C-alpha cells in the first residue's frame, strides 16, 4: 500500500505537467494582460515597458520554463489584479469552496442512495418511472434556473432559507441543493442500474436462501457491492464541484473558487489561474487517491502494489 501510494503520487507529476502546460499555453494564447493593467490611454512605450518588466516579451518556452521553475518552489507568482501572492488568494477561497462542495455531495448522496435503491427494487413500477423522471429533470435543469427558482420559492415566498451569502448552516442549503441536484440525478441512475445488476448476483440469492430479511439483503449484501461506482463518480465530480460551481456561486453570491477562477481567466491573471488549477488538480488527485483507499476498505479483493 505504501509503495502504491508513492507510485500514485509520482504518477501525479506528469499529470500536473500536462495540466500546467495546457493551461499555460491557453493563457498565453489568450493574450497579454498588460492592456488590462494600464490606464486606457497608456502609450505604446508604457505597454512595451511593462510587458518587458513582466517578462512577457520572452518566447513561450522561456516564460513557461520560468513559470515551472518558480512553481516547483511553490511560487505561482503574484496576482497583478490583487497585487498579492496568488496562492494565498486561492487558499483563502478553499474553505468556502470545500464547504459547498462537501455539502452538495452529501446532499446528492442522501437523495441518490435511497432513490436509486428504491427504484431498482421496484423496477418498472410507478416509483421507478418517477425516479427516472426526477433524475432526468435533475439533469435537465440548468443550475441558474434551479437556483433562482429555489430562492424564489424557499427564501422569498416561504422565508425558510436566507437568499444568498455565506454564514450560518442555513445559507449553504439552497446552493448545495442547486449544485448537488445534477450529481444526485446522475448517481441515482448509476445506483439503479448497478443495483439491478447486483440483485441478480448469486451471492444475493445465497443471502436470501439463508432466510435473511429483504431489507438486510438489499442494504448489507447488495448495496455494498454497488458502492465502488458510486465512490468513483464522487471522486470524478471533484473538479466540477470545486472549479465549476461558478454559476451556482454567482446566483447565491457565494465567494468560491469558481468565481475567482473565471474572473482570473477573464482578467488574464495568469498567476491566479495557475494557482487555482494547481489547487483543483491536487484536490482531484487527492480525492481519487482517497477513492482508491475507500475501494480498498469496501472491497478486500482490491490490492494495491
Amino acid at each position, binding site marked *: 500500500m505504501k*509503495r*502504491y501510494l*508513492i*507510485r500514485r503520487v*509520482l504518477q501525479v507529476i506528469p499529470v500536473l505537467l500536462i495540466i500546467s502546460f495546457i493551461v499555460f499555453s491557453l493563457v498565453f494564447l489568450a493574450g497579454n494582460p498588460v492592456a488590462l493593467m494600464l490606464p486606457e490611454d497608456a502609450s505604446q512605450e508604457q505597454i512595451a515597458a511593462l510587458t518587458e518588466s513582466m517578462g512577457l516579451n520572452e518566447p513561450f518556452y522561456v516564460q513557461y520554463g520560468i513559470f515551472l521553475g518558480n512553481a516547483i518552489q511553490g511560487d505561482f507568482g503574484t496576482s497583478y489584479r490583487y497585487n498579492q501572492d496568488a496562492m494565498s488568494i486561492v487558499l483563502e477561497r478553499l474553505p468556502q469552496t470545500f464547504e459547498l462542495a462537501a455539502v452538495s455531495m452529501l446532499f446528492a448522496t442522501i437523495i441518490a442512495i435511497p432513490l436509486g435503491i428504491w427504484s431498482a427494487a421496484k423496477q418498472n413500477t410507478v416509483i421507478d418511472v418517477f425516479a427516472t423522471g426526477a433524475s432526468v429533470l435533475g439533469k435537465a435543469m440548468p443550475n441558474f434556473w434551479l437556483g433562482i427558482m429555489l430562492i424564489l420559492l424557499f427564501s422569498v415566498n416561504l422565508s425558510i432559507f436566507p437568499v444568498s451569502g455565506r454564514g450560518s448552516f442555513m445559507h449553504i442549503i439552497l446552493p448545495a441543493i442547486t449544485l448537488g441536484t445534477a450529481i444526485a440525478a446522475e448517481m441515482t441512475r448509476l445506483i439503479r442500474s448497478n443495483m439491478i445488476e447486483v440483485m441478480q448476483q448469486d451471492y444475493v440469492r445465497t443471502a436470501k436462501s439463508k432466510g435473511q430479511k429483504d431489507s438486510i439483503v438489499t442494504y448489507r449484501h447488495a448495496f455494498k457491492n454497488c458502492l465502488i461506482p458510486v465512490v468513483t463518480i464522487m471522486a470524478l465530480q471533484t473538479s466540477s464541484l470545486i472549479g465549476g460551481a461558478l454559476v451556482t456561486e454567482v446566483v447565491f453570491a457565494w465567494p468560491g473558487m469558481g468565481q475567482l477562477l473565471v474572473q482570473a481567466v477573464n482578467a488574464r491573471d495568469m498567476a491566479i489561474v495557475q494557482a487555482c488549477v494547481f489547487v483543483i488538480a491536487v484536490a482531484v488527485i487527492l480525492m481519487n487517491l482517497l477513492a482508491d483507499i475507500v475501494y480498498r476498505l469496501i472491497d478486500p479483493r482490491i490490492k494495491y*502494489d
Partner: protein
Amino acid sequence: MSTNKNNSKQPILEIKGLKKHFELSSGWFSKEQKSVKAVDGIDLEVYPGETLGIVGESGCGKSTTGNTILRLLEATEGQILFEGQDLASLSKKEMREKRKDIQMIFQDPFSSLNPRMKVFDIIAEPLRSHKVATGDDLRKRVYELMETVGISKSFDQRFPHEFSGGQRQRIGIARALALKPKLIVCDEPVSALDVSIQSQVLNLLSKLQKEFNLTYIFIAHGLPAIKHISDRVAVMYLGKVVELADKEQLFSRPMHPYTEGLLSSVPVPDPHVRDTKERIILTGDLPSPADPPSGCRFHTRCPYADELCKTKEPDLVEERDGHHVMCHYPLKEGRGVLIEN
C-alpha cells in the same frame, strides 16, 4: 504401435523448453518482480494426423500453452517449431501467413463469436483477411464450410445468439477450417456444452480429422472426452508436463501418482461399482503457480511423497516405450480405468 508410427515421421510441431511467465505487478518502482509461471518448461512433439490430448486441472497452463503456440501470447522462453520453422522468429506479417496453417477452436462458444457479426461474416472473416476468396467464390466457400460442419445455409444471416451452444461451436469449427489448416488447437471445445451435444461435436471433430487429415492438439479437463478423442495424452500439473504416453498406456497403466489420482477421481456412471471401486482421493488444492512448491511440484498432494520429492525436482524421463513420466518413484502397475478392457 502408434509410437512406431510417430517415430517414422517428422513432427509437424515441436515445442522445446517452452516457458510463459506472467509478470504480476507491472509497477515502475517495485523491485522484485513476482511472476506466475503459467508454463514452466515443457517439451512436446506433435505428429501429423494425430491428436495430442492435454489434460490437467484448471489453471495448470493448458490454455497458455495453446495460446503461445498460436503466438496469441509471446513465449517467455523456448522454441515452437512448426514444420521445422521457429514461429517466434517470424515477423508479424509472416506469422499472419503462417496462421493459415494453425488454427484454434475456443472453449466458450458464447464468447468466441462476435455477438454483433452474422454467421456468414464470421466464417468468411479468415477468407477475407487472407484475401483467399471474394465475391461468389467466397460465398461458395462459406456455404461449403457450413455444410461441412452441419449448419444449414439458410442460417447465414443470423447472429450467434440465435444458435444453441453446440451450433455455435460448429460455427467456430467452420471458421477454424476455412483456411484449410494443418494443425488445430482445440482449447476445451466441448467443456461448455450440454451432455447430449458434446457427443455431436466430438463426433464431428473426429470425422473432420479423417476427412481433412488434420492434426489436433486437444485440450480438456474432462478425462472421458480426452480419452475418447486422443491418440497420445500429456498430463499437465502446475505448468509442467508430468506424464506423456499413448492413450491406452496412460489410461490403463498410469505411472504418475497425479494421473492415477485423477483417473480414480472421475466418477463412473455405473452405480454398481460405487461401493466397490477403490479410490485415491487427492487431498488439498492445486498450489499457486506464482510460487510452486519446491522439489517435485506434486509432493504436497502426493500420497507417496518422501524427503527426496520435497527437495529434488524429477526430470521427464521415458520409462517405457513412448511413456514419459516426471516422478522419482513412477508407479510400475498404476491403477488405471481401462484394465477390464
